[in-house]
């Protein structure tokens, strides 16, 4: 049976507006774990940028700092990470230059300047933003023991010094990035 439209009337067009689906069920429950194992300035950023992006997309995000990555959350070193040309052929400069005294300092200042020009915060402030966005910071038990560090040496917002197995348990079902 078909419905007839009475003469002289028009059928209303579909008026449901097109609305972006921000909170789709498929994105719910998505989890990301990022293992930060490097302590150089250039290698600190990939994890921070991706964590920040994931949080902005509503993804539950955990960062696990291990080995040299500990420098990112150690209060003494977090703002002092360095960039060196040595062993980094992607600078496309002669490697010998990297060994000249003061060159690491110069390269670090240059990189910090380029990052600041893009309005990207320094590492400690970036971690503040990540925690403010709901991100979770975890420290590796073995790295703490090796470096004789305790929670008092780390940022106050590090939620705990945990074992590798604890982290694996904590991030069940998460997508994982090792940096």
């Amino acid at each position, binding site marked *: 049976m078909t419905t007839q439209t009475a003469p002289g009337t028009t059928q209303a067009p579909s008026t449901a507006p097109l609305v972006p689906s*921000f909170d789709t069920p498929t994105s719910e429950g998505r989890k990301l774990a990022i293992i930060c194992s490097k302590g150089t300035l250039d290698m600190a950023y990939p994890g921070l940028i991706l964590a920040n992006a994931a949080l*902005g997309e*509503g993804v539950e995000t955990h960062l696990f700092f291990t080995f040299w990555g500990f420098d990112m959350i150690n209060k003494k070193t977090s703002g002092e990470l360095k960039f060196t040309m040595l062993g980094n052929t992607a600078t496309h400069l002669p490697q010998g230059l990297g060994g000249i005294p003061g060159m690491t300092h110069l390269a670090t200042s240059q990189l910090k300047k380029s990052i600041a020009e893009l309005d990207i915060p320094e590492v400690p402030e970036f971690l503040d933003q990540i925690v403010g966005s709901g991100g979770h910071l975890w420290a590796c038990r073995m790295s703490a023991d090796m470096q004789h560090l305790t929670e008092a040496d780390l940022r106050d917002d590090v939620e705990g010094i945990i074992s590798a197995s604890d982290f694996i348990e904590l991030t069940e079902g998460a997508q994982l990035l090792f940096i």
Partner: protein
Amino acid sequence: MPTTTIAGHAVEVNDEGFLTRPEQWSDDLGAELARLIGIELTDEHWKLVHFLRDDFARQGETATLRRVSTQSGTPVKSIFHLFPGKPAKKMAYVAGLPKPKGCV
């Protein structure tokens, strides 16, 4: 470009539903866009939405979450509270602007 009708206004949108012509936006429309994504706009929301509008007019691109936070003096945590889930995209949507392009 598809056209959709929101609060009685015919507006041009992209495939996702973001307004493609920022000049078609008004406060009334913004309130309705917010309602459609489940947000009731308070003065705090409006402060951010108007910041985004003004900043877009000056810069020609949508402010990222960090820019909104630092330039408007609103902590990131509060922005997440006001526009939960995907704050940068939700703010841009309500303000009738394209999604922000910047990474941070």
